[in-house]
């Protein structure tokens, strides 16, 4: 195989060499004047017009005909806004791009060499230059200010009742940690991470950690603000939710965050696209090693009721890893067992008692 390719390449070179040699000899025989500008110049000029028509034509054709293939449906509030900005910018730039390209290629064709003509000595024109400095500056300012407004809104503080979920990136998987009923994520420390089960590095002396639960599927409530708290265990990763227009790096040693509001449940999106197999996905967008391309996490957007039901059905991490009870300080063990759901709340004990236990534990 490679031998044949090699021979082919050599053959092409030999042919080229012979063509050049013949061309040169013919040139010598004819007494060719190399300074004369002839047919090739006209051919090149014409080719530029062909190129312009063909390339702009296929650009517009593909962009219109395959529009739905290359545009991702959007499912978040800010995503609609940034998509709007994207398409406004697209309109402005495509107009500018087309006009400049067409003018340039027409000039190229129109002013091709003609020995009877002399080029215009036109070195400067301040009005022209001023015009094309100021016009792009104005257009850009408009784009900048609309962009800034959107950016400030997107990066503003999340509201207090936002649904907080922690995303942890590691080679090569994503894990989500939900705060459980207390709506507080327990403290973590990377030095507590181990291979036996404590993949979060949960600090079990913090009562906030007792009801935290782990999920390998990212469930999101529709219509509510979600605040992703993002961290990485080993190298850089990046939380990328294409349909929600969300992207934020996961950085070891520096927690990051991103807030957004999903607008369509998975089912709604399936109906909308007419694709019953549609699923939201989370990908990694920062090179992280061998398995970078496979770092996927399924994403499900539920309506409020299903989401609550799903959350209630999840077991606390501590319940799944009861061995770690030994790290819970003695005075919190009872509370931990109750909060993590290891022991059922006694029929006779009203909910207040549990809360009282928790409150008591908290004060100690």
């Amino acid at each position, binding site marked *: 195989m490679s031998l044949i390719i090699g021979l082919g390449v050599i053959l092409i070179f030999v042919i080229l*060499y012979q063509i050049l040699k013949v061309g040169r000899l013919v040139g010598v025989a004819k007494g060719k004047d190399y300074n004369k500008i002839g047919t090739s110049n006209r051919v090149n000029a014409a080719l530029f017009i062909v190129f312009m028509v063909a390339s702009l034509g296929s650009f517009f054709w593909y962009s219109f005909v395959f529009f739905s293939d290359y545009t991702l449906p959007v499912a978040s509030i800010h995503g609609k806004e*940034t998509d709007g900005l994207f398409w406004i910018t*697209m309109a402005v730039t495509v107009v500018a791009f087309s006009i400049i390209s067409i003018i*340039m290629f027409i000039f190229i064709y129109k002013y091709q060499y003609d020995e009877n003509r002399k080029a*215009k000595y*036109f*070195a400067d024109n301040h009005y022209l230059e001023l015009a094309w400095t100021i016009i*792009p500056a104005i257009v850009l300012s408009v784009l900048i200010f609309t962009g800034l407004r959107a950016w400030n809104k997107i990066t503003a503080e999340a509201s207090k009742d936002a649904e907080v979920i922690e995303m942890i990136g590691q080679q090569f998987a994503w894990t989500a940690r939900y705060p459980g009923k207390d709506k507080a994520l327990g403290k973590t420390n990377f030095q507590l991470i181990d291979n036996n089960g404590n993949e979060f590095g949960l600090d079990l002396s913090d009562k906030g950690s007792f009801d935290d639960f782990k999920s390998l599927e990212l469930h999101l409530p529709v219509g509510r603000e979600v605040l992703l708290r993002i961290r990485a265990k080993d190298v850089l990763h990046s939380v990328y939710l294409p349909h929600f227009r969300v992207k934020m790096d996961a950085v*070891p040693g520096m927690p990051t965050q991103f807030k957004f509001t999903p607008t369509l449940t998975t089912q709604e999106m399936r109906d909308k696209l007419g694709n019953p197999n549609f699923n939201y996905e989370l990908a990694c967008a920062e090179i992280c090693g061998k398995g970078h391309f496979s770092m996927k996490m399924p994403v499900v957007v539920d309506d409020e009721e299903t989401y609550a039901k799903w959350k209630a059905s999840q077991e606390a991490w501590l319940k799944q890893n009861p061995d770690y009870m030994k790290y819970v300080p003695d005075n919190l063990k009872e509370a931990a067992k109750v909060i993590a759901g290891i022991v059922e709340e006694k029929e006779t004990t009203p909910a207040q008692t549990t809360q009282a236990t928790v409150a008591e534990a908290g004060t100690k």
Partner: protein
Amino acid sequence: MATTDIHIQHDVHHHDDHAHDEHHHGNFWTTYIFSQDHKIIAKQFLITGIFWALIGGCLSVIFRLQLGFPDMNLEWLKPILGGWITPEGKLDPEFYLALVTMHGTIMVFFVLTAGLSGTFSNFLIPLQVGARDMASGFLNMLSYWFFFLSSVIMLISFFLETGPAAGGWTVYPPLSALPQAIKGSGTGMTMWLVAMALFIVSSLLGGINYITTVINLRTKGMSFTRLPLTIWAFFFTAIIGVLSFPVLFAAALLLIFDRSFGTSFYLSDIYIGGEALPHVGGSPILFQHLFWFLGHPEVYIVLLPALGISSEIIATNSRKPIFGYKAMIGSMLFIAILSFIVWAHHMFVTGMNPFLGSIFMLLTLIIAVPSAVKIFNYVTTLWKGNLRFTPAMLFSIGLVSFFLTGGITGIFLGNSAIDIQLHDTYFVVAHFHLVMGSASFFGMLAGVYHWFPKMFGRMMNDKLGYVHFWLTFVGVYLVFFPMHYIGIAGFPRRYYSWTNFETFSGFADLNTLVSVAAIITLAAQFIFLFNFFHSIFRGRLAPANPWNSTTLEWTTPRNPGHGNWPGEIPSVYRWPYDYSKPGAKDDFIPQTIPYSETPESNLPHENELIKLEGEDNKGIIIGGEHDSHH
């Protein structure tokens, strides 16, 4: 202005003391290998650059095979890639990352920095400002040999068992710092860092030389306002390089410390390979700031020389003055300054403070203004010209087209709100390959075609040049334009395959098209290589000034020796763009023709300069302050 110019003469005359003939007697080693002649050094950079471009191009075709034909059996690459082809005949995913990493490193630094600036700054600065050689021929020679050493080390890293660096050309830690994280971060990364450190030394030695030569060694009459735009571009490029490369050096040094001496500049809170590492308190973001403080100016280090080259070629082949000479200089200066304060637009979604994001977005989009001015000026230069489509001219037009197409998508990416979605997708890949990769590459090719006659005393074949251009121009667009669609669809870059995601399951057709176009484009470069090497030995003998150009290099003999001009260095009397001047006999007036010899074409204020020309012999030179705008 005038005082500076008077000083110049001392240097010029000092150099005149050298009898240039003596330099011809060196042996093979001092003439061709350890040469201190800027022209030989330029050719050394060029040939090394071409070698690297070929390697870089082949690497890209290998990973394009993977992306375009995911089911292809690559068993046949085993003789070259050995263990990097898995037993199933697939490319190893880790080697895929090594390929993209090395493709980026090679193309950005070894081809488009060393190969472009190294070749043309070296070749053209002394010839176009009217100097016998660089300010320091010895440092210039060292600059090449440091580059050579760097190249050797980088090349050897391909043959390591663990492979070359694989953490992306930006080598973000912790991935690049931890051999546990990826094989390429072992010895491969160490060699990458050593090679880059040597490369930076080379680049600084070259840059200091370019700056010094432009400031000090201009010939009589060559005021700054009479410099060709090429020289202005090389001058700005060198200044950017001297200011920004040391920061990359610092970044690399700290990374070396983190890797080898247990420091924690970039590392913190890491649990990998079953253990928590002792590093605390470092920040991976610090590296990104340091890297992009070079990395963004680097874009312009790559691009400005190409813009300078194309300005010169477009003016010459339009037979017209470049439109807005001063605006061109002004916009390059503005771009050079801005290039230092926009770096964090690469970091909008790294977790950097969002307020910083706003500032950097503002500064980034400002850069579009001088860039737009440059494009408009190119187009206006073509207007009412008398265009000759030499291969150099074709490639320059191609450059303007790429600069426009690729530049305009920068308006999306510089907008932080839009960048959230587009960051690290194929949209970015399309953007920078067009605006900086392909545009600069075309600038380099244009330069080779245009100055080949001065480099080797022979002409390249035009017809092969046309074929080369059209295949490459259409090929590059077919490679990079479809990537915009793939990027808008959200496909992330540096992905080995798309099969794991439903979201990224489409576009197999476009990816195949891109790969086929990439293969054809690479194949077309062999036409160039053939033309290049064939013409060195067999090309038609070049006339002294084949393009009827005005600049100084075309006043040298066909094969300029060491020292460039056989007699005295010619004096300069006018700016470099007197093409098609009304009333003039020819459609060009070389810079060496005094106004006193061209009364028929002089503009009123130029007639006033005639009496000052006579005083040249007494050592007074007038800066060309007024002869460039009307």
